[in-house]
């Protein structure tokens, strides 16, 4: 994989987020450094849902946090609503915050256990002094009802009284309080039961339509993002492998890594021929990534060229981009 390149960018008036050459470096033991995100570019058009997919350690969560400038970046640019977030002074950035919100994987630890549900959801409104206390209280009720909770019953309860799925609903209500334009969801359903995952995924779809949101959906599971995304970006060791629409990516993955991800999803059908695990081993250490294409050490099609040259993203079909020397 992976690749660099910007062939998949779509500059237009509708672009809400444009990320170019974004790099995030962390210091590692022994004076070395790890590029968790290594020159990533992508853009988001208003109203779309971009899924970012990859294994643990591929940099997808770091990317999500870096976009919101929750962690320091070491290069590149992030333009949100046509303003450069990375170059902006802190006080200006703070004024942008209501428009960009995030929800996290563990819904229980992301809610203060001492706060009531009403206070958790109201807090952003109170901090930004939106409306009178009565107006805020009314808004809290609206938000709780919108995410499928009975406001009168849940208002005064504490997070520990709720299941994981219900806590994720509370997190979603809170993230929507300030009417954001962009919502970054970092593995929002990985900690939940299969039966509850579908409820939360459907809720996110409803909220997107109701509030006109643009979503970034980070996940390790292609099957989960398939239903909700309009575009999928596959990452490996801090780089982009493939970008395509969800149906294209499933029916004709061109990158060998995407193919392996598709093959790893368990099929709930015992009569289906049992394939061996689609991919062996785990990603190499990002401290010392392989030269050229970073996926070559696990790739069935790797050649000398893959070690020598880093592949660049190229359009192989309309809207379908792959960074591979030997696409499938």
């Amino acid at each position, binding site marked *: 994989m992976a690749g660099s390149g910007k062939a998949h960018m779509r500059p237009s008036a509708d672009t809400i987020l444009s990320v170019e050459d974004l790099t995030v470096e962390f210091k590692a033991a022994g004076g070395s450094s790890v590029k968790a995100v290594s020159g990533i570019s992508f853009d988001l058009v208003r109203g779309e849902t971009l899924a970012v997919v990859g*294994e*643990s*350690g591929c940099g997808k969560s770091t990317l999500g946090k870096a976009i919101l400038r929750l962690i320091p970046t070491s290069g590149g640019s992030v333009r949100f609503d046509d303003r450069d977030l990375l170059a902006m002074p802190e006080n200006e950035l703070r004024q942008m915050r209501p428009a960009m919100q995030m929800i996290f994987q563990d819904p229980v630890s992301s809610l203060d256990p001492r706060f009531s549900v009403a206070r958790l959801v109201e807090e952003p409104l109170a901090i930004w002094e939106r409306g009178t206390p009565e107006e805020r209280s009314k808004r809290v009720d609206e938000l709780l009802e919108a995410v499928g909770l009975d406001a009168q019953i849940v208002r005064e309860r504490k997070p520990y009284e709720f*299941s*994981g*799925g219900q806590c994720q609903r509370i997190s979603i209500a809170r993230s929507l309080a300030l009417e954001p334009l962009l919502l970054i969801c970092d593995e929002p359903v990985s900690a939940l*039961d*299969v*039966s*509850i*995952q*579908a*409820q939360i*995924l*459907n809720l996110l*779809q409803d909220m997107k339509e109701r509030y006109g949101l643009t979503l970034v959906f980070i996940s*390790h*599971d*292609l*099957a*989960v993002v*398939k*239903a*909700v*995304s*309009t575009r999928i970006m596959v990452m490996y060791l801090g780089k982009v492998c493939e970008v395509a*629409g*969800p*149906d294209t990516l*499933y029916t004709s993955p061109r990158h060998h890594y995407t193919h*392996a*991800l*598709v*093959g*790893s*999803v*368990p*099929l*709930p*059908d*015992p*009569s*289906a021929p*049992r394939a*061996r*695990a*689609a*991919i*062996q*081993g*785990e990603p190499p250490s990002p401290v010392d990534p392989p030269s050229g294409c970073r996926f070559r050490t696990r790739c069935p099609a790797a050649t000398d060229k893959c070690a020598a040259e880093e592949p660049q993203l190229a359009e192989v079909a309309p809207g379908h981009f792959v960074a591979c020397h030997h696409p499938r």
Partner: protein
Amino acid sequence: MNSILSIKNLEVGFDTPRGLLQAVRGVDVEVPGASSMGIVGESGSGKTVMCRAAMGLLRGSNVRRSGSVVFDGDEIGSLDSADVRQYFGTGMAMIFQDPMTALNPVRRIGSQLAESLVIRLGMNKKDARARAAELLGLVRIPDPEATLRKFPGQLSGGMRQRVVIATAIACKPKLLFADEPTTALDVTVQAQILELLSDLRRDLDMAMMLVTHDLGVVANHTDYVTVLYAGLVVEQAPTRKLFASMKMPYTEALLKSIPRLDQPSGGRMPMIGGRLPDPTNPEPGCPFAPRCPYVQDRCRKEVPPLTVAPDGHAYRCFYPIGGNA
């Protein structure tokens, strides 16, 4: 075929300030020797409590347990925790969902792995260490020697789960309890771990109870499936039979709610609305009735009995899908 584990009418309850919480309400499970039984259900369905009760791991003055658990011919249901220990390691072993908390973070992998070999099998330290390296090879950890000297924190989640599996199989147990062994892992690593467990089971002639909330996981890695709901067995059958003709609306709903790659994108996903009933205050009728798409009046009044069809397919429903078998 002889059963390695036979659970009969197991009931487990906990005294709580809100009254008795009935976690397991009369469960029968038979695991034939060297076979693999999947236990499927949502969080709170009683699947973990059932396994722990079967292993004698539940203790405390607030635990109410009754029923029979026969392991390898011995009745262990009434033994206390200390007496049931003799079966651990060589008889049964367990692996858990979170491989980090199952390992001691301040001890090297080698010493943790050798521990049970020294205590259980009476090996000397040198042999135990050599065997520990072999075990790491068996669970396909590259460079076992180097891994023996590492601490759990230096390994990825998938590698840690391999170490936990190596620890569990160290004394060649006859039955392995695997409680959500892949839920905390990436999809790619999940596929590898499930494959490893299936291969080890075949090579070691070991039975397995695979506990999971994901029907997709049991489909390819078990011989039998038991579906639990609110502490009751609601469907039980050989895996192929279950997937070929589901009888219980709950099982069908669980299957439909799995995100699939061959589903169209952009649409709404099928889901099960609502949630499990309150275990301290079970309402009359079928526990799934409030969430069931096919519910009828009778379902709200009586708990359906477990119907066992002539082919062994058991289900707890008055109006099974496709009619009574």
